[in-house]
């Protein structure tokens, strides 16, 4: 069909020709036959579809209660009273929100509709009263009004699901194949979210993808970097793809607040908390566990906030995040949460508790998984006023067998730090002094991979030093501690190995009086950034732990966040919008050279895209690091090329800018010249124009101060 666009004028002309009074035609009355678009393709098809998906019918706060007794007219009020009593306990029923239909004789039909103020209340009511036994023969069947329609649509006969032909997906790991081996990062500033390459060679970021209003709160990479998750009022969404970021899967979860991926990216945990309608009640929390690839809910957990708030501190509204901690390394096999006197460990095969019951541990305070093995570390504080010692124990999953236990006395608090390979566990123990007035700190170091898991006790030389920060070297055997009481604390490095490999911890060095309060190891180990954030205004020290020397000191004024790129080549420091000014980020090389800085107002987030672990075998890696010279030659040559090219480009650019400026100047000069007379007239004939008066000139003045003659002996 011809889709030539006719102008209004053409239409009028043809109307005249046909003898139709065009002004009489009511354009709105024209109806197209259904299915006919006259060749005009609507571009809002996608939009329509989306809306249908995102919004439900809007009756989300109405429930349908079925299986009510059928009563005659006389008893109607009594029944209504009973129902109202039951349902108004759960939430506020709207005025006229209870409707019980009757037939022509006034007999009820055995069901009613109840409209609450909020969908949450309706949801709660459904949950609480579905299956409620009014009496023996009347067990309530409660459903959401919105669901009824859905149930109606279910065909009576089962039809086999259509098997869609396999269409190959995009390579979600395409970014790893970058020729220049660059890394990506995401930033959020203002309303824009942007993914960029870190092009350190060109000393600037290279844009990949940008989208305004991409997320409603924050964005998060999945642990292996495959997906980028965004949060919305309706739920979470993951994005990914080879060239751009396409929407891959949606996870419906209204008012989702927090999300957490399992380490292997298999599952996504979403969390929301809902204000109670009744101020006496506690907040309700909803947790969903989705399969990342299919988007299916594998299991959901609902309850009051108290049930999820035990153990740990921090997080949002009393819940310590993540509620579910994933164990067993990248296989996503187990997840666990802490409850009152129990640790509940679930396995992902069936999404049920292991052995169908939780592990009972009286008064358990905290637990953590080994990052690689299905081993749990638990901490139980002192009980009975010190009669029963505090303990840390290691429990094997799924056998629930206790591998090792250590009793500790007069403990005030414990914190557990796993080394990233799961080789070591450090437990920082705060103990009361004899007077119980103050505490001092020591470390219990577990060697997980050795037979019987030997434990070593480490105490600092000055026992009264406060521990400000502790960090294991990733994949390594060393750790760093910031300790001290004064404003300039000391930093000590320890190794779990000694020269003679006797399996004893040894101190490598202590550097005194540093303005640092946070430790950031390179993900590849060996290098560490000693950072002074907050009160120290962003002092940075780049330290080489192999050589035990400082490589560089620098400052990123007011820096709030520091993050190494996944390869350990670059460090990003950023000032986020907690400060009003200086917002933006700096990119440094691993040895503390500032490569570039980007200023962005309202800067919220900087996050490197993680990389999956290397596919090279340890032997191969060893070989590469041994013959590094051979491999690096190629890259060094490339670097040089780029830097040459860059300086050439820079020169060229400057030349152009300068020339352009010269053009302006000459144009202005000419105009000035033309207007000279007029200006003189305005000044009543005063001639001098100010622009000629001063000029920068290099004048060399030589002045003879003194002349002396001296005889120099010559021998």
């Amino acid at each position: 069909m011809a889709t030539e666009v006719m102008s209004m004028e053409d239409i009028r002309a043809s109307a005249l020709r046909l003898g139709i009074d065009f002004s009489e035609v009511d354009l709105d009355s024209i109806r197209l036959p259904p299915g006919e678009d006259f060749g005009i393709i609507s571009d809002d098809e996608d939009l329509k579809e989306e809306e249908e998906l995102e919004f439900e019918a809007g009756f989300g706060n109405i429930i349908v209660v079925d299986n009510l007794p059928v009563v005659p007219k006389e008893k109607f009020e009594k029944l209504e009273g009973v129902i109202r009593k039951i349902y108004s306990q759960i939430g506020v029923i709207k005025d006229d929100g209870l409707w019980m239909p009757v037939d022509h004789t006034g007999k009820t039909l055995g069901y009613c509709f109840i409209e609450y103020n909020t969908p949450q209340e309706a949801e709660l009511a459904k949950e609480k009263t579905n299956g409620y036994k009014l009496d023996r023969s009347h067990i309530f069947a409660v459903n959401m009004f919105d669901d009824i329609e859905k149930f109606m649509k279910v065909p009576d006969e089962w039809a086999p699901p259509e098997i869609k032909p396999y269409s190959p997906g995009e390579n979600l790991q395409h970014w790893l194949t970058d020729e220049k081996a660059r890394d990506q990062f995401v930033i959020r500033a203002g309303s824009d979210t942007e993914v960029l390459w870190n092009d350190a060679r060109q000393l600037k970021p290279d844009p990949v993808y940008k989208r305004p209003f991409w997320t409603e709160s924050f964005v998060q990479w999945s642990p292996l970097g495959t997906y980028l998750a965004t949060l919305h009022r309706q739920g979470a969404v993951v994005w990914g793809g080879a060239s751009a970021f396409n929407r891959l899967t949606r996870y419906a979860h209204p008012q989702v607040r927090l999300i957490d991926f399992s380490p292997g990216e298999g599952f996504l945990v979403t969390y929301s908390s809902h204000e109670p309608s009744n101020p006496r009640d506690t907040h309700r929390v909803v947790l969903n566990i989705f399969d990342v690839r299919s988007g299916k809910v594998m299991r959901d957990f609902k309850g009051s906030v108290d049930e999820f708030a035990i153990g740990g501190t921090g997080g949002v509204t009393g819940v310590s995040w993540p509620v579910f901690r994933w164990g067993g390394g990248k296989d996503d096999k187990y997840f666990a949460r802490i409850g009152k006197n129990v640790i509940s460990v679930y396995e992902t095969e069936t999404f049920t508790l292991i052995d169908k019951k939780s592990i009972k541990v009286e008064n358990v305070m905290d637990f953590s998984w080994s990052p690689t093995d299905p081993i749990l570390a638990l901490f139980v504080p002192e009980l009975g006023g010190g009669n029963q010692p505090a303990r840390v124990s290691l429990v094997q999953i799924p056998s629930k067998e206790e591998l090792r236990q250590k009793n500790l006395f007069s403990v005030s608090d414990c914190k557990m730090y796993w080394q990233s390979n799961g080789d070591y566990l450090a437990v920082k123990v705060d103990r009361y002094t004899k007077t119980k007035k103050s505490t001092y700190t020591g470390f219990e170091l577990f060697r997980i991979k050795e037979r019987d898991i030997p434990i070593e006790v480490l105490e600092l030389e000055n026992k009264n030093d406060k521990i400000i920060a502790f960090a294991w070297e990733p994949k390594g055997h060393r750790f760093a501690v910031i300790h001290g009481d004064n404003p300039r604390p000391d930093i000590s490095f320890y190794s779990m190995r000694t020269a003679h490999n006797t399996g004893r911890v040894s101190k490598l060095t202590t550097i005194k009086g540093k303005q640092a309060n946070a430790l950031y190891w390179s993900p590849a180990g060996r290098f560490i950034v000693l950072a002074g954030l907050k009160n120290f205004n962003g002092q940075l020290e780049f330290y080489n732990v192999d050589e035990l020397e400082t490589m560089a000191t620098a400052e990123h004024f007011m820096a709030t966040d520091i993050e190494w790129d996944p390869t350990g080549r670059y460090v990003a420091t950023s000032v986020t919008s907690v400060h009003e000014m200086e917002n933006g980020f700096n990119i440094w090389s691993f040895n503390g050279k500032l490569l570039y800085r980007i200023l962005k107002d309202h800067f919220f987030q900087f996050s490197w895209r993680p990389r999956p672990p290397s596919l090279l075998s340890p032997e191969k890696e060893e070989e590469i690091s041994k013959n590094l010279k051979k491999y690096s030659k190629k890259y060094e040559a490339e670097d040089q090329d780029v830097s040459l090219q860059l300086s050439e480009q820079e020169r060229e650019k400057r030349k152009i800018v300068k020339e352009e400026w010269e053009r302006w100047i000459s144009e202005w000069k000419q105009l000035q010249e033309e207007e000279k007379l007029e200006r003189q007239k305005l000044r009543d004939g005063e001639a001098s124009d100010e622009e000629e008066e001063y000029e920068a000139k290099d004048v060399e003045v030589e002045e003879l101060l003194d002349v002396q003659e001296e005889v120099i002996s010559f021998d």
Partner: protein
Amino acid sequence: MRPILMKGHERPLTFLKYNRDGDLLFSCAKDHTPTVWFADNGERLGTYRGHNGAVWCCDVSRDSSLLLTGSADQTAKLWNVKTGTQLYTFNFDSPTRSVDFGVGDKLAVITTDPFMGLPSAIQVKRIARDPADQSGESILVLKGPQGRINRAVWGPLNKTIISGGEDSVIRIWDSETGKLLKESDKEAGHKKGITSLSKSNDATHFISGSLDKSAKLWDMRTLTLLKTYTTERPVNAVAMSPLLDHVVLGGGQDASAVTTTDHRAGKFEAKFYDKVLQEEIGGVKGHFGPINALAFNPDGKSFASGGEDGYVRLHHFDPDYFNIKI
């Protein structure tokens, strides 16, 4: 060289102006007394008493005989520079924010703030040779921009008036007819209020400073955006070197936020940029508050900065300055 610290004002500085010869420096502050200093050694020469409110702006005639000041007391006053006597008072119904003499000193443009329901306005006054003949009549009154107009200056040959203010738009007006000729492009222009505007010595281009943490260089006739200088903090004052291709930006946060921020967080530095390459060259520290005013000596060998801290700092450049290469 060590800067000369000029203490004379009791309240934050608002404006600085050198005379054409570069031997006198006029300063305005929120105290009510504009002051004149020797630009060479920072000695105080005298004050102009008579205003009854913060003085926002001043301009001095080409022959250094007349001083025009605009004040929050709803007046603009003409002074005899030498004797300090008031020659004439222009009365307005709202505070005056900026004043500027036209070429030939026979015209002045004065802006007034929105006040008690009155909108802001740009007013053109004739300046009489003989103060006895001076009248307060406005030849032209321009209205339209929303919010305060922070600065209005004359264009080439007094044919246009250039204004900038809180609505973040730079406008060029015909000074004869009062017609709006040009407006700065929304995309290219400032995103937040314009705080200051300063002409080049030959009145061919000008620089504007804004709270959007940038300063922009414009062609005065076509309003073409030539350069943008970005910084980390709101810009309160801008100035261009008459000698070298340098611009200076001064600023800091709002005065109300000074006490709640680290003194280094405000970074009350005067920042030097290469005018052509738009790159930062260096900074001059010193003030204990945001910088509100900047001015270059017409010889380009010194500059003055005025701060929220009530001080004027007079900086004579070291010889190194003239050899900066980037």
